[in-house]
């Protein structure tokens, strides 16, 4: 079975290459569907396959750039990418990320970085979970009220409507974001992207996990447009991140390319699946993914207070993440296949 293993030229470790393709497919499907890079899922996966942590992060970012580019192209064809919004947000994302990274250096100097980062991460994930499920509950309540009153359910109704209050701020220049269907001050997406970029810089992540819900709840994008536009941001920031980590010598390109073979295919499946799943279906699945991520962060934080459970927490966190990746990827793939079958049957019936 020696042929199933490949020697990585830079990291110098032998890796089970089919494992890389499977991991790539899984995170490709999830990334294309939710609009995120999925570093929190890939890094522990690569670590299990035998990569040193430093190489796991760099390799993950490198494959993420290629995968997100494919997903952006696919979502672009579906009309899910607001390029104007994406370019406006780039300014805020880059500036915010740099400020966040500088703050991390300051925290490192005072020796508090790990604790602060993990607690911020955990609180943020708890807040996103609350936001997503409160939104879903309020939307359902609106639907029930409409049915009880004998009215038609408004398909464009939303639960949380914070974006409506933010759209009332009319600081020039005002911009029309046609794909997202928004007219607002340009400062709104810049401020939101600065904030999400700052958080991403502090937490050392790509930021899709924060930016996607922010585009929905703060900027007011429809779910599909939020997914597509976020992927556009991930593709550009991923390419920058890939350059940064590679220059520091922490990228194993051979592994990234093997992963990319699976991820490029998976990303297409994930992106096409958004054709068949309603906006609120995507939001609920996203909320579940965030819960999984929050539990894994909590399991990493627990050993700081109870050192005796360190090993068991680490094992549980890793397998829980991999289980979650498999379950979500399977769910999205099944939905995509069902939707495609239905579409083909409809086409046949019309012909």
């Amino acid at each position: 079975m020696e042929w199933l293993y490949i020697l990585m030229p830079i990291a110098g470790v032998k890796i089970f290459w089919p494992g890389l393709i499977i991991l790539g497919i899984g995170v490709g499907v999830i990334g294309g569907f939710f609009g995120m890079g999925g570093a929190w899922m890939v890094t522990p996966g690569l670590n299990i396959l035998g990569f040193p942590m430093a190489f796991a992060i760099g390799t993950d970012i490198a494959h993420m750039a290629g995968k997100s580019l494919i997903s952006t192209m696919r979502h672009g064809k579906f009309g899910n990418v607001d390029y104007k919004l994406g370019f406006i947000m780039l300014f805020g994302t880059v500036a915010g990320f740099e400020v966040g990274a500088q703050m991390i250096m300051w925290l490192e100097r005072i020796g508090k970085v790990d604790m602060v980062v993990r607690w911020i991460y955990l609180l943020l994930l708890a807040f996103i979970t609350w936001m997503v499920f409160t939104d879903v509950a309020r939307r359902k309540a609106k639907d029930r009220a409409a049915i009880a009153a004998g009215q038609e359910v408004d398909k464009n109704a939303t639960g949380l409507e914070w974006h409506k209050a933010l759209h009332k701020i009319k600081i020039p220049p005002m911009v029309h974001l046609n794909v997202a269907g928004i007219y607002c001050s340009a400062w709104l997406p810049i401020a939101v992207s600065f904030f999400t970029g700052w958080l991403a810089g502090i937490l050392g992540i790509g930021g899709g996990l924060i930016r996607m819900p922010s585009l929905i709840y703060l900027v007011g994008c429809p779910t599909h447009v939020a997914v597509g536009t976020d992927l556009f941001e991930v593709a550009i920031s991923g390419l920058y991140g890939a350059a940064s980590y590679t220059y520091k010598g922490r990228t194993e390109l051979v592994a990234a390319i093997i992963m990319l073979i699976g991820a490029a295919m998976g990303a297409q499946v994930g992106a096409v699946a958004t054709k068949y799943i309603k906006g609120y279906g995507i939001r609920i699945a996203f909320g579940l993914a965030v819960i999984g991520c929050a539990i894994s962060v909590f399991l990493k934080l627990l050993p700081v207070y109870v050192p005796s459970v360190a090993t068991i927490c680490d094992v549980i966190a890793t397998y829980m993440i991999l289980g979650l990746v498999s379950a979500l990827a399977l769910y999205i793939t099944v939905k995509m296949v069902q939707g495609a079958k239905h579409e083909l049957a409809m086409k046949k019936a019309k012909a």
Partner: protein
Amino acid sequence: MFTKGKALLAMFVTGLLLAPTMAFAAGGGGAPIVMVADTRKLTGIMAWWANLYNESHLYFTIMTVILIPLIGVIFGVLADIIMHFIGIDLKSRDLAEH
């Protein structure tokens, strides 16, 4: 559709042109650790790749930044062709919910 294609192409070309600058910029905060790839067990393209890493991280970075999008696009287009062959409509989405 044509405008979006042009925007994406412009983004890609800009990325390629900026690749060396980004690589220089990215080098600022690096840890002062020298990592060397062990090329003794490698042959062919793998040995060439590891040697490139050892000789210049800058050229290695430029190659990586060019290869990643290129390979991604090749496999993405391949998946496109397969899905198009199956008969899935890849140009429109009927669902229009918030």
